């Protein structure tokens, strides 16, 4: 039976037809516009997809809803969209989300412009009875005359050929894209066109698009959006599940992200005063799962041991064939990855900061949904991924939020009490990763949270003085610590436990990689190789003190307060003064790849030069993980 669903967001309303018994989340996914958040993938575990039933009929609340929603909230009509099922015509409402404040700056790179994709204007002789050669050879010869020998194309791709058959006859100027020895795309040329490219950082949470002018290397426009796959879950595992379990899931996820990138590139081009079909190259750097989903290749085997991806190498394709553009000119470069869990985003980041060229040993940490860590330098690189979980992205935290307007991003203590700042300076609506870390650091320092992570009891809190004690509260689930009592924003005991797990994963990853370096990087020679070739099996790991620099990449890494990160034990204290904020280094790497063949090769070399360390099977990692769950003692 069919019913109507009306969704209200602020002043906006949208409507759709739904089936009786259908899940509300599935129905809401079909409405365009602002995506609904479902970090747990719609399994009734996280409580983030809450909506309020204004009128109409839904199935009775399930047990999981009674756990995640208070009785007062249930009475007001709040429900979890993933568990509630349509039982009649209805109208639901949800809070509007602010604009995402996603960090998209990257390091500026000094590059010689030598693009891997060349866009060239050619005019073909129409042919005659004396010269009956086919258009294909005519086009290849015309392009070869304009290019250095090593770039001359040998092959015309089918989408280009289809355009060629018609266009060649009327003697018009044609614009052709040449990449990887092939003519990827072709269309009629126009007067006064520009040659643009887009570097895409394809994150599980966020997509960032950088539009760049190929002639000058200047970045003309930047934009970022939350990944439109996120109603299928916050992390790569839930996306893989969705692709495998939902009928047509893989194609749905592929189509969503491809059309989102296509739209972002077109909007960026328009913002720069150009047309979308002046973009001749889109270079994409994402984690391995995102790259598989974008290519429409099943990532299923990535999700379980032994974690085998279908592909990792650089691919050059027609952007139109991938759904990344609706015009035939554009080429797409899918940048190379290192393993199932250290993807093209990390390789591009390593290439952007030039990790493989640096002397000494550097740590490179991308603090996204997955915490990827690389360690090394020109002697060799080790890389690993840690399952930090999405706590630092706000998922799995009761009052957690992504990096959006209104998220508490910084917390500190002043004489007269606790203070905080929000993204955009608007009233607080939740807490994001950097705020979470600051808050725990503050609560550790004032004694409300013990080293073990336990929130002290009411008696212990009162010994800390009335101002501090007033921050402690309780609800039906146990003790909590207020950040803003009026707005109902607090950290629960379970939130602190989730943060302990997340920070322990990163900290243990750092410890394990550094410990591995002496044995695994031993074959390389160099001043920092330490114990060196055939040295004693690493009983004594090079400590964090021997690390020359620490690059923090990712949006969250840029907002992070290093002192707070050290205070909670996320980063080793000895590295506090060696931190270099690398910003969105994968975005910077993707832009650089559009501009320079050397950078595409550098991404590939970063992969070949790195050894992947699988942490989950290592006993030393598991030991370090448990050790790192405690907070460092108060100094």
């Amino acid at each position, binding site marked *: 039976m069919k019913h109507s669903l009306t969704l209200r967001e602020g002043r906006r309303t949208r409507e759709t037809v739904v089936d009786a018994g259908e899940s509300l989340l599935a129905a809401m996914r079909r409405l365009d516009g602002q995506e609904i958040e479902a970090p*747990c*993938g719609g*399994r*009734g*575990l996280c409580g983030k997809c809450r909506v309020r039933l204004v009128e109409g009929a839904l199935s009775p609340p399930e*047990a*999981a809803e009674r756990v995640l929603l208070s009785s007062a909230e249930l009475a007001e009509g709040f429900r979890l969209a993933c568990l509630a099922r349509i039982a009649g015509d209805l109208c639901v409402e949800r809070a509007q989300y602010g604009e995402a404040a996603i960090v998209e700056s990257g390091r500026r790179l000094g590059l010689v412009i030598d693009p891997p994709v060349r866009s060239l204007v050619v005019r073909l002789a129409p042919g005659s009875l004396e010269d009956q050669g086919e258009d294909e050879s005519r086009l290849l010869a015309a392009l070869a005359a304009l290019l250095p020998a090593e770039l001359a194309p040998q092959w015309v791709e089918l989408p280009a050929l289809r355009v060629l058959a018609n266009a060649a006859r009327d003697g018009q100027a044609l614009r052709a894209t040449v990449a990887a020895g092939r003519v990827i795309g072709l269309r009629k040329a126009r007067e006064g066109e520009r040659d643009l490219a887009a570097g895409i950082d394809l994150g599980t949470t966020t997509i960032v698009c950088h539009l760049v002018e190929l002639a000058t290397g200047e970045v003309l426009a930047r934009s970022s959006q939350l990944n439109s796959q996120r109603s299928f879950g916050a992390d790569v*595992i*839930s996306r*893989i*599940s969705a692709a*495998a379990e939902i009928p047509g899931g893989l194609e749905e996820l592929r189509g969503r992200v491809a059309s989102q990138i296509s739209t972002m590139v077109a909007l960026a081009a328009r913002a720069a005063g150009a047309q979308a079909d002046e973009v001749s190259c889109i270079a994409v750097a994402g984690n391995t799962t995102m790259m598989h989903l974008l290519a429409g290749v099943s990532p*299923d085997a990535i*999700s*379980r*041991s032994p974690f085998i991806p279908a592909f990792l190498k650089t691919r050059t394709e027609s952007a139109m064939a991938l759904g990344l553009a609706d015009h035939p000119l554009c080429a797409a470069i899918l940048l190379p990855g290192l393993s199932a869990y250290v993807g093209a985003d990390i390789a591009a980041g390593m290439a952007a900061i030039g990790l493989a060229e640096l002397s000494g040993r550097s740590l490179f940490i991308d603090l996204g949904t997955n915490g990827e860590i690389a360690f090394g330098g020109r002697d060799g690189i080790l890389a690993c991924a840690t399952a930090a979980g999405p706590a630092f992205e706000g998922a799995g935290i009761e009052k957690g939020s992504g990096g959006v307007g209104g998220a508490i991003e910084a917390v500190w203590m002043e004489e007269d009490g606790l203070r905080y700042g929000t993204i955009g300076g608007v009233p607080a609506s939740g807490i994001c990763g950097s705020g979470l870390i600051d808050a725990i650091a503050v609560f550790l320092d004032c004694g409300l949270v013990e080293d*073990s*992570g*336990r929130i002290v009891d009411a008696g212990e809190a009162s010994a800390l003085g009335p101002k501090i004690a007033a921050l402690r509260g309780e609800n039906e689930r*146990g003790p909590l610590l207020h950040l803003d009592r009026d707005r109902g924003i607090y950290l629960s*005991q*379970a939130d602190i*436990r989730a943060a*302990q797990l997340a920070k322990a994963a990163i900290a243990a990853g750092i410890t394990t990689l550094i410990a591995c370096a002496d044995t695994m990087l031993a074959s390389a020679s160099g001043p920092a190789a330490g114990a060196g070739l055939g040295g004693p099996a690493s009983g004594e790991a090079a400590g964090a003190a021997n690390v020359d620099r620490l690059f923090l990449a990712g949006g969250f890494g840029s907002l992070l307060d290093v002192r707070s990160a050290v205070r909670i034990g996320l980063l080793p204290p000895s590295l506090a003064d060696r931190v270099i904020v690398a910003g969105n280094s994968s975005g910077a790497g993707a832009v650089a790849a559009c501009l320079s063949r050397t950078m595409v090769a550098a991404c590939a070399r970063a992969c070949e030069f790195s050894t992947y360390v699988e942490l*989950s*099977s290592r006993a030393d990692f*598991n030991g370090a*993980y*448990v*050790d790192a*769950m*405690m907070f460092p003692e108060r100094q």
Partner: protein
Amino acid sequence: MSTLEDISAFLQKGRANETKAAVQKAIEEGIAAKDILEKGLMAGMSIIGDKFKRNEVYVPEVLIAARAMNTGLEPLKPLLVSAGVKSKGTVIIGTVKGDLHDIGKNLVKMMMEGKGLKVIDLGVDVSSDRFVAAAKEHEADIIACSALLTTTMTEMKNVVEGFKAAGMRDRITIMVGGAPITDSFCTSIGADLSSPDAASAADAAVAVCAKSA
């Protein structure tokens, strides 16, 4: 404080050597081995389990308490054997095929041992066949399967099917657990029990064994 209370208190603080010394003192005082186990060591572990359920203690404290329990058990084991004290039941535990997550499974194992169950740990990446073979070999009462990923939890269904195929399904209780596991998932794959945390899993396992005993 009595010696048994000392044992419990030292265990809760994770002090392995003091726990062992207090156990030895209790033996010298002539306290029955079964009482030292149940009213000393297991009582302490039970308090840790309850605190873990309420998030008051966390993984590291449970692990060091479990280490103290194992150290405290050393001088007691021969006495338990000669006194004929039997375990309350036998559990085969493992993380399912394709999943390498260890820590959650280890917590469940420790909580179960803390309740006096015999636990055979098959480790991680355990196939359905290995669960079945181990259940036969050890005449297990319970199979406890762990999975942390939504992509590997489907493997639990294969374990259930494996026991059906071996004709052992009605003789064995299958428990499932891990972050993505819900009661409705448990029911949907035909498993018997799921628990929200390690301590509840141990309680449930003891209840199953008490019923079948």
